[in-house]
């Protein structure tokens, strides 16, 4: 069986190639028991963050196990880096986090990473450096000598993530990576995925937590009953053309009526303001805020602490210049790549409200300078802000807007600045 495959579009070899993949589980008497995956065809391109979505039992984990050679396909073709999943050499380039962290309970965090590092035959110095950085990154420095059996589920998950990254993989497979993690850990994992994706890693993210996937992935497949139901980029799947959201500073009833009137007038009465709402802070942000404040008071915890920065070896900072330059060149690749790029996450520190008394809306409306959105991760297509701004300028009379905003013109007024766009959800 030849596994060498190239994508139809650019001649680039896909990282994962699946064609008509089917997996049927059989019982002891070889009777078909369940069709876990059926006729599944998809590809994952290099430097792509790919989502595998679906409810429980939809075949996500089975697909991943087929990719890793933990299961054999009943029929269909499968290739990873152009080779069979059974090829041992291919596994040098893969990092895998299973849906639960299956760890040796008798080892401590350090020994666990040491063991997995040795399986990649990393030399002593490299091992120690990577282990130090990863333990710091996942926030387990204080608990690194405790046996893994004493860890909470979330702490075990963190070690699971660290072991998946120990070989600085080209292709990272994350099966439900945020399971068992607290919101801080979840956010960190999402940030990590975005960061690694930005750095040119190929990532397969499987999850049924849609918000996790939406925040991170470029392209996705939606599975149900082992079959592919949808495939496409986030935007192509999620963007609706029938609605437009404009986010502004707080407006009074009269202003909104005027805007409505303008819209009705310009559309000949066919369009109008459908819904006016005050944006609420997300529960995730609210929770992160509390944790942030607690940390500020240095409350004691014996568990995992805030994770450190992304391990430098994953960013190529400690590697030879050649590798570094390569990654930089890849990550600075222009947006003409076929897939939509993810805008880097806004740093949590700046995104999160600053203090307990901070009134987000008030802050934003009173501020003189334009503020970033309260969304910690603003997902958008690169260049989309500019495009929307241009469209807005073209479609809307700028003076009318200024008047409606009650400003003295020239883009001043209460909120000022360019409108912040957010796609309808």
């Amino acid at each position, binding site marked *: 069986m030849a596994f060498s495959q190239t994508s139809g579009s650019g001649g680039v070899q896909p990282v994962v190639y699946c064609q008509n993949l089917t997996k049927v*589980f059989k019982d002891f008497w070889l009777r078909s028991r369940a069709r876990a995956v059926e006729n599944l065809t998809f590809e994952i391109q290099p430097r792509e963050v790919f989502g595998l979505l679906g409810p429980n039992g939809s075949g996500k984990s089975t697909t991943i*196990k087929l990719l*890793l*050679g*933990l*299961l*054999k396909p009943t029929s269909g073709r499968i290739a990873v880096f152009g080779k069979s999943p*059974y090829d*041992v*050499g291919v*596994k*040098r380039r*893969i990092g*895998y986090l*299973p849906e*639960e962290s*299956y*760890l*040796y309970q*008798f*080892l401590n965090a350090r*020994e666990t990473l040491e*063991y*997995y590092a*040795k*399986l*990649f*035959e*990393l*030399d*002593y110095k490299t*091992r120690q450096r990577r282990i130090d950085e990863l333990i710091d990154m996942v926030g387990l420095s204080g608990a690194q*000598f*405790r046996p893994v059996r004493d860890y909470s589920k979330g702490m075990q998950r963190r070690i*699971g993530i660290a*072991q998946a990254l120990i*070989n600085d993989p080209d292709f990272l497979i994350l099966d439900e990576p945020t399971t068992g993690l607290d919101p801080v850990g979840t956010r960190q994992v999402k940030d990590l995925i975005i960061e690694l994706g930005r750095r040119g890693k190929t990532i397969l993210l499987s999850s049924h937590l849609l918000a996790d996937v939406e925040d991170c992935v470029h392209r996705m497949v939606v599975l149900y009953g082992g079959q592919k139901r949808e495939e496409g980029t986030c935007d192509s799947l999620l963007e609706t053309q029938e609605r437009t959201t404009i986010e502004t500073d707080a407006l009074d009833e009269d202003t909104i009526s005027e805007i409505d009137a303008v819209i009705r007038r310009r559309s000949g009465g066919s369009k109008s303001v459908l819904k006016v709402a005050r944006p609420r802070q997300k529960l995730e942000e609210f929770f992160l805020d509390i944790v942030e404040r607690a940390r500020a008071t240095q409350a004691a915890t014996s568990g995992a602490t805030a994770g450190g920065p992304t391990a430098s070896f994953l960013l190529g900072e400690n590697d030879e210049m050649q590798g570094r330059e390569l990654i930089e060149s890849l990550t600075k690749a222009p947006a003409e790549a076929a897939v939509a790029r993810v805008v880097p996450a806004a740093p949590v520190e700046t995104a999160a409200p600053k203090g307990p008394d901070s009134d987000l809306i008030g802050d934003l409306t009173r501020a003189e300078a334009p503020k970033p959105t309260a969304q910690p991760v603003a997902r958008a297509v690169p260049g989309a802000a500019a495009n929307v701004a241009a469209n807005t300028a073209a479609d809307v009379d700028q003076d009318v807007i200024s008047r409606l905003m009650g400003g003295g013109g020239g883009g001043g007024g209460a909120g000022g600045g360019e409108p912040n766009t957010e796609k309808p959800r």
Partner: protein
Amino acid sequence: MKIGERIAALDRLQHDRLFKLIATVVVVLAGIASYTTYVVKRAAEPPRVEINEQYFAPQEGEKPAEAAAADSKSPEVKTRVPTLEETQARQAARIINSILARQADPTGVGVLAATATGFAVLIIWLNLAIWYALITVAIAGFYAFGRLVPGFSGTITFGIAALGLWAIFLVLLTAVRILLSGPSRVLAIARNTLDEAARMKISGVFIVLVVLLLAALPLLLDPKQALRYRVQSFLQYGTGLSYMIIAVLCVLFSVYSVSMEQRSKTIWQTVTKPVAAWQYILGKWLGVVSLAAVLLGVTGGAVFLFTEYLRSQPANGESSAYRSADDSVPLTPDREILETQILTARMGVTFSPPQLDPVAVQQSIEARIAQEKLTRPEFGDTAADKAYVRDALLQLVSLEQRTIDPGKDRQYVFEGLSEPRDKGLPIMFRFKPEAGSNRPDLLFTITFLFSNGAVATEKVSLAQQHTITLSPSVIDDKGRIVMNVFNGDFYERTANPNALYFAPLALEMTYEAGSYRLNFARVFVILWLKIAFVTMAGIFAATFLSFPVATLTAAGIFLIAESSRFIQGALENWQVEDYKGNTIWFFVVIDKIAQAVSAPLAFYADLKPTQRLVDGVLLPWDSVATGGLLLVALVMGLFALASYVFRSRELAIYSGN
């Protein structure tokens, strides 16, 4: 701080480089100071005395009857080879002088001091300094308690021995862990398996059991028993029981480690790394056999050291070790047997089967078939029937050769004894007579007549092993001993009431063919190889069976291997036909299965390393090599099979769930 955290903190301290440097300096200075003190003290003592072998030479008229007979009837032999008593005297002088020399030589003490200091430094750099210090303090505590409070000597000896063994276990385990710490996949898996074994309860129980057993055994020996029996008991139980425990641990743990990794899915994260199936299997095996090596090391060390300790105790009839209470007897029988038959490596020769005339055999077979045909006309037409008659005839011949009627004699020839004749080594003749129902109250008189004219008449109990020491002069020029056994007193012409019977190996000539220590080492090599085989069997079973089924399979292989010779013997008497001559097919199936599994493993049982150690029988290098190669071949065969099965498996599916 919890106890676990305190231990972890202490462990980190003994890993600290500065701590290790300081500790090394302290230990080296202490070693130099101790040796200097010893040398200064030693210089003031008188020089030692050497024992002359004449000290042990027997007086005129005290020669054993058998040796005297040999001397008188074959003077030409006497000029060629040293007599038995000369051999004994030399041996006794050699033994005692070597002991005295060891005790008196200051160089030996210097080497000892240097070794002890080196060992302490090794301990420090193996990151065990604090554990060893704690163990030393605990041993000192036990000792001090024993001195202050009488009546607990047993408990205290046990405690000290257990702590000492634990110390040996720790250092061996750490050394092996370091050996397995390279950045190779196989070594990583092996090291992980070893750590698992050392930290999990399932293996911990066995490890503690071995240590406690070895520590408790000396207490179970009866101090009133003859020294040689104490030594034999200790060798038997210390080595045999420890081996069984270690083998069972390795079988169980190898199955547990491989099948539980599949069940708990930890294997997913290992096999999704660049690890080939053979690397995983080899790593697992290496980890378990490393643990076996550590535990056999502890056992070997403990058995060897305690045997040496027992050896230094007074034997029956000795005022102190190696010093007979009766000046007229140079070596007491207890000491002599211990030194020459047990703590040695002897080669055994059994008698040759009779030279049968092929024509007569064939005629006899045909006559028997003809007789059988009278009642069963179809009998004798097939090759199997003929083979059956032949086997039955040969068994009958063998039985007849080993049976002596009352008042009759039978000749036995032992060949291949040129080596002891040329080297002038004494021969130990071992025999175990049986008669009737082996009544324990009966004593049988048996006369042994040798071709050189030597005669020994012995009055012995039945079903027990007896030994006679023979001069090498009983060996003829062809390296043979020709011996007639008379069932009764040959000179008195009296007979015993029953026919005498000897089991196949119950008549044996043995001679010293190697050193006890080397033999001891070879025995442990074979024990380890046997464990290596059953470990691979366990791993192989666990690659495709669930934990309980794999455990039963591996344990079955182990039991069959250990008892394969017994099974082979039992199968000789296994009947597959009922009394009417109808074949019972179920019994045929059992016969075939039992043959198939026990025949290839018969060599495994024949190695009998522990029994050889206890009986002081040489395990020659060629046996070690042959047995070792066969075991290695079995291990490699199972390894190839296990790797293939493992590679073909869908590891995300575990049959035990």
